[in-house]
């Protein structure tokens, strides 16, 4: 079986929705990240077999956003492309698809990543208003039209807010933040613990930025109308000037909740793209890959407790690959919510919790806080849902080299009650 690697990758800066990048659609973010990818990595675009991008808020005017982005990025038209969706782990799913294509002999070089513009998540006419338009278009005579107009009610103008509905799980009727609140309540995770965790995330991210740690990952974005270069993630709080986390009100449970905008991931625009290929192909190009992919796993659990997705998916990954938590020198658990990560950490370390509540034979194994999200996480950097998975892998791959450790874990919780987990490792023939 071919050994499959992440050759290299780039990501755009992660930009808070509604700010500098709001003029960029998901297809345009995808185009820019692909252009940057091929500027950086000396792989001839003609040698790519497939382009796969994850995207959750898929643009209605760019169906199959991966294909639109690939064409606009100037890739040869003969290279097919498709878009995948597994909620927050969509871009990890893209990488998994790449792996499967390579393993089944359908491809040797795949561009896998994600693109997301939550700024452009649509507002949708509600059903009453849509119905109003339908009746209007069918009304031919003046009396008919007047009758339709007379049925107009102001309430029809209330839009459906795409992003709100997108973040609400219809199978359990809970918005993502409410699932975090549930875990916080059940495990007694306090407001202060969550805020401290959030603060740490921002601090670690700020340190990483000041060290230039993201320089090797980020390629600048240019957004109309002004085209000023966007070169850095803009969600990281400046401690000196930002409102204290303690001042914020809980958003998802207004009475006695603990989850706030400050200790949750941010709503963000961004894209990331990796080149997934085989060890042999990388050697043929004379390029040392970033890391080898050990394995991937997806698992399901009850949607109400989706935040524990990392636990079940990591358990599955360990079982499948034969690795142990103690093998990993760096761990990325996506920070959908501080409460959710803290809950996961408890489960990782508790056989009782893992078996009682998740039905696992045992806990995956404790996570050393010193090796967790060492450059900050989605609370500070933002969570452009379709792109986060690829970003975690990119940051993890670079961090293995940075810390000179052999292997690492990246895992996400996924709305709808799933988890995704990836393990990467360095070898003699990787960077």
């Amino acid at each position: 079986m071919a050994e499959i690697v992440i050759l290299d990758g780039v990501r755009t800066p992660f930009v808070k929705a509604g700010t500098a990048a709001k003029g960029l659609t998901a297809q345009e973010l995808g185009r820019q990240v692909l252009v940057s990818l091929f500027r950086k990595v000396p792989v001839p675009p003609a040698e790519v077999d497939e382009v796969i991008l994850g995207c959750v808020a898929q643009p209605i005017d760019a169906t199959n956003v991966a294909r639109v982005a690939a064409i606009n990025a100037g890739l040869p038209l003969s290279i097919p492309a498709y878009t995948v969706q597994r909620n927050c782990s969509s871009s990890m799913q893209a990488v998994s698809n790449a792996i499967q294509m390579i393993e089944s002999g359908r491809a040797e070089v795949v561009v896998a990543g994600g693109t997301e513009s939550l700024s452009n998540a649509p507002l949708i006419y509600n059903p009453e208003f849509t119905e109003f338009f339908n009746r209007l278009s069918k009304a031919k005579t003046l009396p008919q039209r007047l009758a339709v107009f007379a049925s107009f009610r102001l309430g029809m103008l209330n839009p459906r807010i795409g992003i709100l509905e997108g973040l609400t799980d219809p199978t359990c009727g809970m918005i993502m933040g409410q699932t975090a609140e549930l875990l916080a309540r059940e495990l007694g995770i306090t407001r202060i613990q969550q805020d401290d965790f959030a603060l740490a995330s921002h601090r670690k991210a700020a340190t990483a930025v000041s060290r230039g740690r993201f320089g090797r990952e980020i390629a600048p974005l240019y957004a109309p109308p002004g085209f000023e270069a966007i070169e850095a993630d803009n969600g990281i709080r400046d401690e000196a000037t930002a409102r204290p986390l303690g001042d914020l009100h809980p958003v998802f449970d207004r009475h006695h909740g603990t989850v706030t905008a400050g200790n949750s991931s941010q709503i963000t625009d961004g894209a990331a793209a990796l080149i997934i290929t085989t060890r042999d192909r990388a050697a043929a190009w004379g390029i040392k890959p970033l890391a080898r992919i050990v394995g991937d796993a997806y698992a399901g659990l009850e949607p109400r407790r989706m935040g524990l997705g990392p636990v079940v998916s990591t358990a599955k990954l360990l079982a499948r690959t034969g690795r142990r938590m103690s093998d990993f020198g760096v761990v990325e658990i996506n920070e959908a919510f501080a409460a959710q990560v803290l809950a996961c950490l408890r489960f990782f370390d508790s056989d009782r919790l893992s078996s009682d509540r998740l039905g696992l034979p045992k806990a995956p194994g404790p996570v050393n806080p010193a090796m967790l999200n060492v450059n900050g996480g989605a609370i500070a950097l933002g969570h452009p849902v379709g792109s986060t998975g690829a970003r975690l892998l990119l940051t993890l791959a670079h961090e293995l080299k940075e810390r000179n450790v052999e292997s690492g874990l990246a895992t996400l919780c996924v709305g709808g009650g799933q988890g995704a987990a990836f393990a990467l490792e360095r070898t003699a023939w990787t960077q």
Partner: protein
Amino acid sequence: MTRTRIELNGRVAHLILDDPGAKVNTLGAELLAELAGVLGALATDPAVGAVVIRSGKSTGFIAGADLNELGAIAVAPDARERGLAAARLGQALMNTIEDFPKPVVAAVNGACLGGGLELALACHGRAVSSDPSTKLGLPELRFGIVPGFGGTRRLPQLIGLMRGLEGILSSRSWSGRQALKLGLADDYCFPEQLPEVAEALAAKLGDAALHREVLAARRKTLPAWMRLLHLPGLRHLLAMRVRAEVMKKTHGRYPAPLRVIRLVIGHWGGSRDRWLAAEAGALGDTVSTRVAQNLIRLFFLGKDAAKQAGTIPGAAVETVGLVGTGLMGSGIAVALADHAGVRVPLKGTSAKKLGPVLRKVWDYEAKRIKRRQIERVSGLKRFQLLSPGTDYGGFRNAGVVIEAVQESLELKRRIYVELEAILPAAAVIATNTSSLSIDDLATGMAHPERLVGMHFFMPAEVMPLVEVIPGSRSSPEAVAAVVRLALAMDKTPVVVKDTPGFLVNRVLVAYALEAARMVGEGVPASRVDGAATAFGFPMGPVRLVAEVGVDVMREVVRHLQAAYGDRLPAPAWIGREDLARAFTKGRDGKWAVNGDVIAGWTGKPDPGTTSAEIEQRLFAALLDESRRCLLEGVVASAGLLDLAMVYGTGFPPDRGGPIREGESRAPGGGGPAPDSGTS
């Protein structure tokens, strides 16, 4: 050698124009005669019920009159008579078509310009294709002449007086779709469908007399206010207004537009015979002017510019790298993305500097889209050809790299070393330097033969001239590649020698310094500038200093004085530290010259020099330096020098260029006297 053939399809005769000796169809005397003969036969042939006129060439319908013939007429001693006769010949054919007893339909794909459109207009109906290359227009004014084959009558008759007049005066062309909307075309389809669509149109037209009814009916469909303008009093008011606008733009130096106004408005509603007789006379009058001679000459010189690539074959370049993000770099990026349509990996020193280049191209495309010159998707695709970065990623596949960074020898040399490390062996490096020697720049290169100067003029996205400067070691292949790239960018390349100032800047500085000297003698700056604009320059030399930039100008002058020593003395006031005080930028972005400030510096009273004397001195300085450049072999010919000066500095094209203007000022020189547009 026949230029036409007939294909009979049922009762429809397809009269196919296909000149075996040329790439495009043009209406020369021989083709006109052949058509007259063919049509004569078709008129009486009982097997033929209708005629479709179309082209057998993929290059287009008919590109216009035969310019070689026109050029020959323009320089002949009896140009007026020959021009009139040529018009009569063409008009006769068009009348034959208009009066044809059977329906005649033109099926137009590609360029249908000048005489070609006049032929299509004479037909009873026109079907046009949706191909992007399809364009219809009467650009005769570009050559200083009026349309002479009935176009001044038939175009406004078909699309309305105002639109017709505006179309001729602006030399604009319409796409197939626009032609349909205007009523210029009766049907619109894909190119492959033209023959059958034209046949169906002919069938609909049936009786040729219907043509006149169709025309009359069409006039009714024009908007009411436009038809109002056809009324006598109003249309003469329109004539006055349009004439005033033309005079403002041309200062009366171009007689042809004024004749067009007189023809269209003066004869509106009048008889065909009188109108055409006046048109023929106008063609004779205008083609015999020096303006027409000069414009036609410049046209041929521009076409010849492509020959400077020699016979060296070369593949089309798909990727052109660009290093440099300043004002010039941005303009060059626009020309590369929009005109040449090549991939442009762009390198800047920082992401911050790259944004403005992208913005410039974006705004340029947005404007074209808004003006409906291109489709939105097309504009986006052109913008997406740029890939910005702070490294040389993407340069690996470049066939040519244009270097447009600041004028620093060390910086440029360093860049060439960096480029040579990654460029393919055959890649050429073109430098936009304006003041450094190509040979100096090539020092230290592994392959100095790949370096050629490619000097653009500001604004680079607009100015058509590119000076191509081979160094002593530049290979012919590299020079040819740069010439070809310039042509692909829709620029006009002129090869010049690698001497300080090359050609254009050197001549321009000599001229500007003479202006400065006059100002130093006390002549008001406004009078100097006024004399230059009256001569025909878009702006005067003193204001030019401000537009170029005081520091840039000083640097250029210094550089040229170092090379040409005391031949180009500069007056004291140019060397002042506070020179910038002489210019203020108005709210409209245009620079204004503060004559009083300068007068204060020079301290000299107005010596009373007349505008004529000023013009004399300015032109003498310009001509003198131009002649030196010719003698020194800076440029290969007088024609190329004139071409460069017209395209690079706005030297008035109607005067033909410095050498040409010099010839005409010489006693007894230069051909017929300028015509002021009599009758």
